[in-house]
């Protein structure tokens, strides 16, 4: 079943000086897939994710999530759509400082007006899965980066979204924490079947995906599928990146 479909999507910024961030991109993602989006700096990765996130309408083309075009809804319907069908994970976690870890995780359910007992039940489940049960009453500034990102993942999946969107989720983490987070993404995808789309510039993180789509200058460039070996997939990703012209070990984190 197709969860996400982009039809000839373009995004142009600016009025006087125009800048084409996305140029005629079409792609299709099936239910349960774990897809990575890669490309050099300024290739339009984040714009693509924002367009999918329903927060940045495309200039032309169509976005279909679960068969419907979210940009056709009014803003409060769109908010409900995001709240119930999408989950977000960011590079800088984006937790609310005034809430505890547990409250942050429950936020999507709170907004939707769920019963307290239901919320607490779900919180217990998701916290156990992500191994953050013992920090639920702490505040955001009292936990480590890895814990903060796991909190963000918990918040993104507590309402069992249709689509999990991640923007450089390992960008602010050390390699050990990054590995833990990617393994979590992989296991959540495998166990719950949540369709996951992740933007990254890190080949190691990308190698956890089942499929990686490469874009360059806002256009589709190439895509590769993972076989059985993650190590081999990693090597393939490096090869494509070299072909893309970006350096294999692109350390640049400045995005547009």
């Amino acid at each position, binding site marked *: 079943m197709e969860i996400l479909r982009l039809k000839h999507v373009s995004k142009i910024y600016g009025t006087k000086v125009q800048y084409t961030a996305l140029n005629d991109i079409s792609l299709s993602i099936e239910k349960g897939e774990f897809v990575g989006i890669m490309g050099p700096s300024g290739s339009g990765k984040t714009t693509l994710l*924002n367009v999918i*996130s329903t*927060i*940045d309408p495309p200039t032309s083309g169509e976005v279909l999530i679960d068969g419907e075009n979210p940009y056709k809804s009014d*803003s*409060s319907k769109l*908010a*409900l*759509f*995001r*709240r*119930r069908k*999408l989950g*977000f994970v960011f590079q800088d976690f*984006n937790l*609310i*400082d*005034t*809430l505890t870890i547990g*409250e942050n995780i*429950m*936020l*999507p359910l*709170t*907004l*939707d007006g769920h019963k*307290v007992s239901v*919320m607490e039940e779900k919180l217990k489940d998701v916290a156990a899965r992500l191994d953050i049960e013992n920090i639920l009453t702490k*505040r955001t500034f009292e936990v480590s980066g890895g814990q903060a990102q796991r909190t963000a993942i918990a*918040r993104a999946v507590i309402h069992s979204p249709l689509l999990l969107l991640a923007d450089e989720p390992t960008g602010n983490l050390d390699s050990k924490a990054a590995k833990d987070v990617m393994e979590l993404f992989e296991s959540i995808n495998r166990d719950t079947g949540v369709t996951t789309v992740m933007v990254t510039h890190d080949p190691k993180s990308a190698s956890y995906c089942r499929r990686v789509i490469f874009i360059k200058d806002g256009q589709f460039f190439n895509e590769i599928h993972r076989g059985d070996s993650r190590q081999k997939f990693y090597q393939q990703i490096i090869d494509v990146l070299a072909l893309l012209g970006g350096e294999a070990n692109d350390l640049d984190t400045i995005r547009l």
Partner: protein
Amino acid sequence: MTLTQFAFNNVRRNTRVYLAYFLSSVFTIMVFFSFAVNLFHPVIASRKGGTIEIIMGQTEAAILVFSFLFVLISVNAFLKVRSKEFGILMLLGMTKEQLRRLVFLENMMIGCLAIIVGISLGLVFSKLFLMILSSILVYEDLSFYFPYKAILLTTGFFILIFLGISALTPFIIRINSIIELLQGSKRPNREIEFSAVQSIAALLLLGAGYFMALSFQLYGINHFLDRIVLLIENLPYVEVILTASVVIGTYLFFTQFSIFILHRLKGNKSFYLHKTNMLWISDLIYRIRDNARMLFLVTILSAVAFTAVTGVYALSSVVKDEALQDNPFALTYTSYCSNKNEQQQVRIIEDMLEAHGFNYARVQSEVIKQVSNHRTIHIMKLSDYNRRVSALELEQAVLGEDQALLVPVYVRFDPKRDKTLSQQSISLDNGAINLEVVGVAPKVIFYSGLFPNLVVVNNETYDKITGIQEKYHSYSYDIPDWLNTREVTEKLRDQLGVGEHGQYFWSTRIEGYTVENQNKKLFLYVGFFLGAIFFLGAGSFLYFRLYTDLNQEKSKYIGISKLGLSFREMKKVASMQIAVLFFVPYVLASIHTYFAINVLQTVLYSSVFQQFLTVLGAFLILNIIYYLSVRSRYINYLKQFIVP
């Protein structure tokens, strides 16, 4: 967790951000409430319809408008800091409705608490304000009372204000662009643009406004200038044009001209690349761009405060002087010739003065009213005039048979442009007598407003006049100890009343003086009240902005200190920036005030320049104290993060 709990948690856990907003609300409410306590005091309230009630009521209205603006600006700064948080919430699927409700709930929690705290603090201070007010109004002691009306008014108004603000929040936070909200305070580092044309326009507008303010004084310097001055004077709504030009000029000054200047400084390499100059100049450009509107508001508020305080201060310090000029004699009684009781009434006055042990000197004059060529003219004879001016210690006049002397009816006369006083010739008895005007008397010789269009003529000419509409006898008394005549005047008023149309009327210096004195002191009180809160409010805006920017600044200073910026240098960079934010508005507001005072000068008798300097000095001291305390708090905060 419900939305209400969420709002409560926000308020409870994020005190640093909320505190500034809360405190400024408390301050505003306290000021409003203290004033309302004065307004509703039983003694004040019992004097319905008087000047006092009008002045107090208008002041309260002004405070209310200011409160609204102040709370609006506070909430604006406060919500801007949190835009990223709102972005996250919206991304997670919070509807606009929910976001509005969240902000509303938070606002109402802070607002209600602020109302309670503000009123409580106001109650503590209200006795003090009542004491000041009662000493000004020379009333019996205004006792403390339980001001339930003031409490109701304050609570009602501020609940309305907070409701209104909550309704406005969707416009403050640009709710429609989640991406922009998520970027939050991280501002795009694009080059700041400015327009040279608009920068020049700023100076031109300020110049034009200043010129218009001065134009009255520039009259008579040269012919070309006179024509411009007259042109300006004949403009419709000249005050509105003047104010608008200065206000727009100030706005452009901060949004365009200041950036233009900093760019020029940047262009001067030997200055710009000298030590820490680069740091504060480049930073200041962004800071001014971000705060331009606020600096503009601070300048205008300060200018209003300075002008109000200088104005009332000047008014109150010249009261006695004006009373002396308005009433050259302590008491003047004027009777129509047809009044049968004239001699009896003069007797009453003189007996009363003697009975109270006052020394006095009497001057008597006769004045004729005539309508000649459809114009009312008052005429007196030279000998009467000379008797009056000698009592006033002025120069005696000499007039030939065909000559006349004009006498001003108001203190502020301008022989150049006052049509009545600039006549070259006067004709009486419908042209039977023609006189040449030889001069204008230097002063009012009866009292302000009595006998308009007064002409002095030679005694022989006076006797020839046939057209007599009315004839008056005026008795003026010079009483050296006039300041103590209040009681005598009250007794005389009991006997003589205010006068009778067609019979007699009389005026005293002490009554005018007392009323003016009270009104002007009251003006002084409310002027200082308003001036102080406008100025404090303006300062708080600045502090508010610095406070909310602190987090961003923090990471910047940590970064630079790692590169090897010493604490002293950091202090210098921060001080320079805060100083510009504090003193540029002060200087500009002072210049505005100087020109505003010049306009005010045209309605005052004596120079107010000294008062102007005193007021500016007082505010400068306040400003310096404000600056030093803000700077030390700011630097102490940054100090924690500096690499030693």
